[in-house]
């Protein structure tokens, strides 16, 4: 009896809410007329999604054909003793390529942010002097919007990253660095808080053992603040993902943001449906990233009460 009620609540309620949402959306879509045609309903969005998948498959098939064709030509050239230069397939990136680029960008930015924020946070948490020195800067830069960082980053990247054979695209680098700049703060602040709130008794243990500082940091400070650090990382990744879409739009870096922007510029009813597909994709990936981080966070957290 109780189980049925619970089941209804945990599964039934969300399903009902979803159905209600879809119904409202369909009803609204039928009534709203935009400058580029009717607002797409759920059915059209689903169709658009299928279209994007089909496009991806077709593109991959073309690429496969191209490679086999090239391979045939290369062998023929080699056999004839003619010179041969490899050629890259120059098809346009599909929707799934855009997703992959976005993910690569966000993780690069997130990695840079973590590599800076965690050590800096540990430093802030262990030394009140460092904290006092950095706190005003943190408070000043933390609320800055990614849209404000981006132009500066783009100009700096152009000025400083002048390799002739670049490992990364400039636009990729600009987006990643902007993501890093914005997602730095939650990890930094949380790490500092976590380190500062290490149980004083645990630090006393370290003092009685006369542990050198690096052992103290490695064996006591880091493990103890790990749950805090991971909370910060989770928030950072969330912020990074939000910032990324905006950054990609402006930096014209390939990725979901650029996809949305391009579709917007295209301006047809079908592209509006595709933008909606992108919205759902962005939301879904954001959700998956968050769940992943929660799982990680659980794995490293220890029962703080049980000391």
């Amino acid at each position, binding site marked *: 009896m109780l189980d049925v009620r619970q089941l209804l609540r945990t599964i039934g309620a969300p399903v009902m809410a979803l159905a209600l949402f879809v119904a409202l959306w369909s009803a609204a879509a039928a009534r709203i007329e935009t400058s580029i045609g009717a607002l797409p309903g759920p059915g059209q969005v689903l169709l658009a999604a299928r279209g994007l998948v089909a496009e991806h498959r077709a593109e991959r098939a073309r690429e496969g054909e191209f490679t086999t064709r090239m391979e045939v030509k290369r062998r023929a050239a080699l056999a004839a003793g003619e010179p041969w230069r490899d050629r890259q397939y120059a098809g346009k990136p599909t929707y799934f390529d855009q997703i992959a680029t976005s993910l690569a960008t966000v993780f690069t930015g997130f990695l840079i942010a973590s590599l800076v924020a965690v050590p800096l946070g540990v430093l802030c948490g262990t030394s009140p002097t460092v904290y006092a020195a950095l706190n005003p800067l943190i408070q000043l830069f933390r609320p800055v919007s990614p849209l404000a960082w981006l132009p500066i980053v783009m100009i700096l990247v152009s000025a400083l990253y002048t390799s002739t054979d670049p490992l990364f695209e400039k636009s990729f680098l600009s987006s990643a660095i902007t993501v890093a700049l914005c997602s730095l703060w939650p990890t930094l602040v949380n790490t500092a808080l976590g380190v500062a709130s290490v*149980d004083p*008794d*645990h630090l*006393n*243990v370290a*003092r*009685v*053992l*006369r*542990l050198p500082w690096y*052992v103290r940091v490695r*064996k*006591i400070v880091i*493990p*103890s603040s*790990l749950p805090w650090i991971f909370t910060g990382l989770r928030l950072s990744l969330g912020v990074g993902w939000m910032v990324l879409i905006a950054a990609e739009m402006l930096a014209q870096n390939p990725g979901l943001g650029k996809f949305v922007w391009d579709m917007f510029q295209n301006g047809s009813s079908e592209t509006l449906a595709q933008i909606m597909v992108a919205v759902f994709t962005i939301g879904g990936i954001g959700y998956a990233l968050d769940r992943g981080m929660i799982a990680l966070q659980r794995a490293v957290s*220890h*029962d*703080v*009460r*049980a*000391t």
Partner: protein
Amino acid sequence: MTSVRPEEIRSGARPAALALRGVAKGFGPRGRRSEVLAGVEFELAPGECVAVLGFSGSGKTTLLSILAGLLPPDAGSVEMDGAPAPPAGPERGVVFQSYALLPWLTVAGNVQLAVDAVHPELGRRARRARTLELVRVVGLEAALEKRPRELSGGMRQRVAVARALALEPRILLLDEPLGAVDALTRSSLQAEFARLFERSHKSVVLVTNDVDEAILLADRIVPLTPGPRATLGASFRVALARPRDRTWLNRDPAFKKLRNEITTHLLELSARRPGRARR
């Protein structure tokens, strides 16, 4: 037990293992400062077990932290063997009230941390063997790879003791070692502690609020007057034969007399506490 009588110390025959001279300590900013301890004189003879008995919030933990060298006194000095005490270190092993076990390490890991710190010169295998030996001493070999959250209060307490023993301290400082343990486990652990102290001939300072625990374990009981400005009062000598058995003590007239004396004394102290409008 090879306990030194206070007279010997006073006559200068042997210096106290640990002593406080006119120690005072307060917390908080000027103006709203609360003086926790004032004018504390204390001497621990080598091999002696002293119980400091006081109400919660009367400064017991502060006193112990000063004895351990974890907290500097505002006034007065801490002496070890007649010389100014060095900073906190393994020669003064502390068992914290909260046990302060590292929750992300296993039982073995927690003890190993101390063994590694004290014996960097030993090889890995020798240090591991030492760890196992200590875990066995406190009877936790079955829980070797368990983490603190999987242990009962009593078991955590044993891990904390094993870790303190790993330091091979000359002086053992215990902060309400059995405060967080339920009543029954407490009595069996008390008996174990009593045996452990008798065997190891360590000098022990034990801070507690439990009269029975103090009588069971200590050679001498020093009441801490209720704070603020708490200080140590005249001490009660516990002249009961060892090993002390709980049931057997219950019939000992000397035990009853001492227990009643200390209890009444403490309640008198509390009644005189400032700021308490009784009746």
